[in-house]
C-alpha cells in the first residue's frame, strides 16, 4: 500500500516536467553591448559585442563582436583618458576622485555601417571599500574562502575580482635517471654537472602560476548586514588542487563599491539568464542600463558602466605541502613496447634514444622503468614560470 501510494504521489510529482521548446520569436540582434567599469587608480578595461540570434555559436567571435570599437573616459573637469591602442584598456591610475566621469564609446557594428557614439551617465566615484580579513575553512576536502568588505558607501553593494599566484611542482619532480645520448644507456643521475645541458629538466621542477579573474566573472553581492559584507564565501578550492600542493598560495582581491542601481542591473541580468522557470521567479524583462546613444535618446546599449575606486589587498594562504603528486598511471606510457613492436630488431639503447626523441624520459618505477612525457618534469609546460612574478611581495 505504501509503495503504491508513493508511486501515485511520485507520478504526480514527475507529471510536472521540463521539455525542449522552440519559441516562435523574431530574432532581434545588433544591439550593442558594452562591458566595463571606470575604476580609478588602475587600468580599466572595456569591451563591446552585440546581441546575436540564438543559433549563433558562442565561440565564433565574428558573430558576437562588433566591427570596430574605441573607448575613452571623460572627466567633468575636462580631462580625457584615451584607450591604449585598440586594447580596450584605459590607464586611470592617475585619475583623481574629485570629479565625475563617464565612458564614451564609438561603435561600428558591422563593416560599412556608420559609427554610433554611446555614453554612460556622469557619476561620482564610489569610495574604495575596506577589505577585511579573508576567512578560510576546510571541510570535506574543500577549502572555502570568504571575504569581508566594508565601506561608508551606503549602498552596501560590492563588486570584486581576484588574482591568484601559486607555487607548484611538476607532477613527477626532477628525474633521477638520465639518458646517455651517445650510448643510449640509462644511468642514475648522481652528478648534476655531468648532465648534458639539454637535459636540464630538473631545473624546472617548481614553477609559479599566475591567474586572474579580472576579465572573467563579475561577482556582486548586496550586504544583508548594513553596508558591511561579512564572511561572504566567494571561492572554493579542492584541497587536492595543485594550487595548494606547495603551500604557497597568494590571492589578491580587487574590490569596488558600486551604486545600488548598478547592483540591481547586474543582478537582474544574472537572474534573467539563470533564475527562470520556477513558480515564483520574477518575470524577466529587458534591462536598460546607463549607456545611451548620444544622438538618439531612445536607443541604448546593454550594460552598466559604474565609476569607482579600487581597493586591493594581497593574501598569503599557507597550507602544508603535500609532497610530490605522483600518479604514474596517468602518465606512464608503453612507448617502448610500441617501439619494440615497430622496430623489433632495434637494440635497447637505440630504443631509448628513439623514445627520447619522441619527448619521453626514463623514470624509475619499481620494479621497472616508465617513460614519461616532458611536462611531467617541466613545470613550464603547464604555463608557469620558474621565477616568481613581480608585484606579489
Amino acid at each position, binding site marked *: 500500500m505504501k509503495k503504491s501510494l*508513493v508511486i501515485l504521489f511520485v507520478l504526480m510529482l514527475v507529471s510536472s516536467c521540463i521539455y525542449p521548446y522552440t*519559441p516562435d*520569436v523574431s530574432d*532581434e540582434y545588433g*544591439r550593442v553591448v558594452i562591458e566595463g567599469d571606470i575604476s580609478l587608480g588602475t587600468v580599466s578595461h572595456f569591451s563591446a559585442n552585440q546581441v546575436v540570434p540564438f543559433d549563433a555559436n558562442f*565561440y565564433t567571435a565574428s558573430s558576437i563582436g562588433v566591427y570596430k570599437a574605441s573607448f575613452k573616459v571623460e572627466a567633468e573637469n575636462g580631462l580625457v583618458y584615451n584607450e591604449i591602442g585598440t586594447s580596450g584598456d584605459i590607464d586611470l591610475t592617475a585619475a583623481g576622485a574629485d570629479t565625475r566621469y563617464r565612458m564614451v564609446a564609438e561603435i561600428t557594428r558591422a563593416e560599412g555601417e556608420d559609427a554610433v557614439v554611446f555614453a554612460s551617465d556622469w557619476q561620482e566615484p564610489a569610495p574604495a571599500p575596506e577589505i577585511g580579513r579573508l576567512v578560510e575553512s576546510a571541510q570535506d576536502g574543500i577549502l572555502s574562502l570568504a571575504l569581508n568588505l566594508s565601506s561608508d558607501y551606503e549602498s552596501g553593494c560590492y563588486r570584486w575580482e581576484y588574482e591568484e599566484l601559486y607555487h607548484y611542482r611538476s607532477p613527477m619532480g626532477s628525474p633521477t635517471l638520465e639518458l646517455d645520448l651517445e650510448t643510449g644507456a640509462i644511468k642514475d643521475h648522481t652528478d648534476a654537472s655531468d648532465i648534458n645541458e639539454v637535459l636540464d629538466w630538473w631545473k624546472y621542477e617548481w614553477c609559479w602560476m599566475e591567474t586572474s579573474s579580472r*576579465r572573467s566573472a563579475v561577482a556582486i553581492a548586496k550586504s544583508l548586514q548594513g553596508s558591511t559584507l561579512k564572511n561572504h564565501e566567494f571561492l572554493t578550492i579542492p584541497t587536492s588542487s595543485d594550487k595548494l600542493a606547495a603551500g604557497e598560495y597568494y590571492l589578491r582581491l580587487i574590490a569596488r563599491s558600486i551604486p545600488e542601481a548598478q547592483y540591481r542591473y547586474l543582478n537582474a541580468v544574472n537572474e534573467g539568464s539563470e533564475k527562470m*522557470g520556477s513558480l515564483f*521567479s520574477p518575470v*524577466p524583462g529587458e534591462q536598460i542600463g546607463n549607456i545611451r546613444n548620444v544622438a538618439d535618446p531612445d536607443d541604448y546599449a546593454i550594460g552598466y558602466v559604474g565609476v569607482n575606486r579600487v581597493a586591493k589587498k594581497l593574501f598569503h594562504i599557507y597550507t602544508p605541502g603535500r609532497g610530490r603528486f605522483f600518479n604514474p598511471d596517468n602518465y606512464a606510457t608503453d612507448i617502448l613496447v610500441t617501439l619494440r613492436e615497430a622496430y623489433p630488431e632495434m637494440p635497447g639503447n637505440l630504443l631509448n634514444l628513439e623514445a627520447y626523441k619522441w619527448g619521453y624520459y626514463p623514470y624509475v618505477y619499481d620494479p621497472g622503468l616508465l617513460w614519461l612525457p616532458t611536462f611531467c618534469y617541466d613545470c613550464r609546460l603547464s604555463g608557469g614560470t620558474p621565477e616568481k612574478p613581480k608585484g606579489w611581495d
Partner: protein
Amino acid sequence: MRFRLLLLALILPISLSAQVKEATDSPSMLFRGRLATRYLSGFNGTPYWDTLSFQKGTVYYNACLYENVEVRVDACEDKLNVRQDKSFASIAPDPRQVAWFTRGSELFVNMEYLGVRSPARFMLLVSDSDTPVFKLVQKKSRSVPGNHNGVTYLGYEDPKYDEKVITYYEIATSFWTLDRGFLMRLKPRKARKLMASAVQNGAFSKSLPAWHPVEGTGAELVAPSVKRSGTKVKESLPVGYFEVQADAGTLTETIDAKYKNKVYRIGIAGAATSAKIEGLITDDEVVALSGVLIVDSGTGTYTRSDKNGRYHLTLPVGETMLTFNDPDKEEQKLSVILCGDGVLNVQLHDRSTLLDAASISAESMRQHRTSDIGIASINSRLISKIPTAFGEGDVLKVVLALPGVQTVGEASAGFNVRGGSTDQNLILFNGNTIYYPTHFFGINSVFSPDMTDGVELHKGGGPASVGGRVSSVLDVGVREGSSKGFRGSLGLGLLTSRLNLEGPLGHKTTINTGFRTSYSDWLLGLVPTSSEFSGGSANFYDGTIVITRKPDKNTTLQAFGYLSSDGFSFGADTTFRYGNANASLHWTKESGSWTAKTSIGLDHYSNEMEEEQDASEAYTLQTSVDQIFARLNLKHPLSASHTMTAGAELLYYKLDGGHRRPLGEESMVIPKDLPTETALQPSLYFSDSWNPDPSYSVDAGLRLSSFTQGESFYAYPELRLSGRYSFTPVLSVKAGLNSTAQYIHLISNSSSISPVNTWKLSDAKIRPTIGYQASTGVYWTILGGKLDLSAETYYKHVRDHLDYAYSAILVMNENLADDLVRVAGRSYGVELMARKSVGQLNGWVSYTWSRSFLRDTQNTGLMAINGGRWYNSPSDKPHDFKFIGNYAFTKRYSLSLNIDYSTGRPVTFPVGYYIYANGARLAYSLRNAYRIPDYFRMDVAFNIDPGHYLKALAHASFTVGCYNVTGRKNAYSVFYDTTDGSSLKAYKLSIFATPVPYINLNVIF
C-alpha cells in the same frame, strides 16, 4: 370465372368510391372498413391502463407504505392516480417517488425508480419466476376533442363507436423480461410461454423496498407510526391527507404545507378579487432557505424567497398551483385555493436522487427578474461534480470554469476576472477576507466543500454593500449545522482527507465543523533519496467552525472561525510557511419589515520564508496582514416596488512590511524591520432596488469610501447602477455602470502570486487604484426553461494600478514606491454562454473573447515600460472556451466532463543573447510581447452517488476520474539554458504533463 373477376374489378372501385363519398358526408361513416379491427383492439377512449375505474391497492411512496387506497394507472402520461375513496378527488403523486404499487392482486413496479432503463416507468409484473415477465401498456392520443376524423387513416365500422367520445388512444402492448439489470423485450410467443408458469411473490417482488404481500383490506386510517428499522411500516395516509382544508378561521393562522399533494385553502373568502399569500420556506432542519423560486401556474407570477426564507405573492383569488423550486430540494407543487390573505409555510425536503440537476433554473429566472448583471451563482452540489486534479472538489476550480474568469496557469493561487489582476478580487468567506485563497500550489482552495453553502461571484465589482477591490467580489457562504441530529461525512483522497461533523447543541443552537489535512509530507519522506524531491515537504491543514443560535424566529446569532496553515519546501535551503486565521460574530434581527445585520470580526494572514543556502547569510523573513472589521447592513422595503438597503463599514488595517532575522548561529545577518502600516477605511452606502413592474427594474446605489493612513487621506464616491428590461418573461436586456476604489495592493512581480508576496497600503506615494466598468447583457431562456442563453459585454478602465519597474526589488524595500510604476489599464470583452440546467445532460458551454492592456503613466521615453505604449497585461487571453458537462445515466451514476481552452498568456521572451561578465546573457523583448503556447485540458470523472435507501446508516460515494486526459504538456513558463556550451536552448515547464488519475471516497453518516 374470368368474367366474374372482371366484373368484380369494375364494381369494387365504384362501390369503394361510393363509400368514400359517403364518408365525406357523414363522420360516422369514416370509421368503417379495413381498419375496423385495429380500432377495436387498438383504440379506446380512455388513457388508463385498461379501465378508468379505481381499484383498491397499496402504494410505496417516498419510503412510506400507503395501504387501503384506490389507484388507477394512466398509461398515457405514465402516472399513477391515487385517492382515498370516491368521495375525494384523486391526486397524482410524484411518480419518481413511487417505487411500486398494487392494484387488487396485481403488482406494478417503477423501473425508473429501480434504476433500470425502460421505455416507461410503470410495468405490470405478470410472472415472478426466475425469469420475471413484465407487461407494458402505452397509449397515445390519436384524436383531438371535437374532431373525430383527426387522423385520416381511421376508417372502419365499429358498433361501439360513440360520437360523444372525443378522444381516442392508440394502444401498444409489449412484454419484457429483466436480465442482469437490463430490460429485454420478449416476443409475444415467448412471453406467453413464460407466463404459462406464472409465479407470484417470487424473488423479484421480495427485492423491492419494504415489500410485503398485501394483507387484508378495510384498514381504517390510523395515526402514522415510525419504526426505526429503516422504513416506516404500514403507515396509512395521515389524517387529512387528501381532504381539502376547511376555512382557516383567521387571517393570521399559519398553515404548514407538509403534504405534497394536499389542497390548501388560504385565508377567508371575501369581496376582494386578489389576495396576498406569504410564508416561510425551510428545509428538513427548519433552516430558512433563501433563493427558492415560487411560481404561480395560473398567472405566471413568480418571486424568490429572501435571505430569511420569506416570500410573498399577490394573486387573484381562486384555485391555482404554486411551484416551489430549489436546486438542492425536491420540487413542491401545492394546490392552493386562495380565498384571502394568509400565510402558507412550506418545508422542502432533500432530494432522494441527484438526477435532476436543476442547479440553476432558479438562477436563470433571476436573470429575468433582477437587475443584477455580471453575477454567477454556484451551488454546493456542482462543486463536487466538476473534475479537478486529484479529485478534490474545489470552490475556486468551479469559479475558474465561469466565463470571464481566468488564471495565469496551473499551480497558480489567484485568478483574474475580466482582465484584472489577482489582487483586484475581494474573497470573502462568510464575510471574512481571505488574503491567500489556496493550499498546496493552488491545487486546493481554502474553502472546504463540506462547509460551503453557495458561492456568488460578482464580476462587476459587487453591490454597494461591498467594496475595496476593483475587479470582483467572490462571496463564499458557510453552511449552518443540522438541527435534526448529529451527522457527518468523511472524505479520503490521494493527497488530503477531510472530516465534517455537525449537529444540534440544545434546542436552538447548531454547530458545524470541518477539518482537512494533507498527508503529502510523509509520502515525500518515502521518496528515494536519489530523487530530486527527496528531503522536501509540503503539507497543510485547515479547520472551520460555525455555531448558530436562533433564540427566536426573528433573531440569528452566529460565530464563525477559520484557521489554516501551509508549509512547503523543495530542497533543504528554502522553506515557505503561511496561514490564514479568521473569526467573526454576526447578529441578524428582523423587526417588522426591517432587517438588520451586524458583524464584527478580524482577519489575519501571515507568511514566513527561511533561506539557508549560505549559513553566514541565512535569514528568516516574515510579513503579515491584520484586518479588523465592523459592518452594519439594513434592509427595508420602502414600498411594494422599492427596497432600500443601507449600511456602514469600518475596516482597520495593520500591515507588517517585513521582519528579517538571522537564522542559525553562523548567520551574520543584521535584523531589519520595515515600519508597520496602519490605516482606517470607513465606508457608507445606500442603494435602492426599484421593481415597479415585472418587466423592468433598476438598482441604484452609492458607496462613499474613504481611507486614512498617516497624513494621507483619500475618499471616493463609488457608483453602482444597473437596470433591466424584459421584453418577455424569458427575454431580458440589462446594463450596468459601476466604479470602485481599492486601497490595498499585492506587490508581486512573478507570474504566479507567491505566498510570501507582500501587501501594501496606499499612501502619499502609492495612490488608490480606481476602476470603472460599463457592461450590457442579453438573456434568453428557451426550450421551456431548459436552456439559458446569455451574451454580456463589458469595458473596464483602471487608473493608478501598480506594475513593477525594471530591476525592481520588492522584498524588504523601505522605498518600495520607487520600484513600482503607476499604470493605466483597459480591458473589454464579450462573454457568450449557453447553460442547460435540467435533464440528464446539464452544464454549460461558454466562449469569451477579451483583451486587457496596461500603459505606463509615470515614466516617459526610454524608462517607460515598453516606451509608454499600451502592452498586454499578464492576464490578457483573447480566447477562452469552457465546457462543463454532467450526464446522469441513472440516479446514481453520472459522468462529468470538463474542457478548458485558452490562449497562452503573455510573456517576455528572450530574443537573442550576448556575452557579458564571462557568460551568455539573454536579451529580452518588450514586456509581454509574446505568448506561451495555448492551453488545453480535458478532464473526466465518473461519479457513483449514494444509493436510494435514504434510511441507511451511512452512504458512500465514489469518484473515479482523470485530470488532463489528453496528457497535453501545457506550458506554465519558458526558460533557457546552455546545453553543449555553444548555444542556448529553450525549455518549457509543465506542471501537469501527463494524465493524472485519481479516486475519491466520500462517506456520509
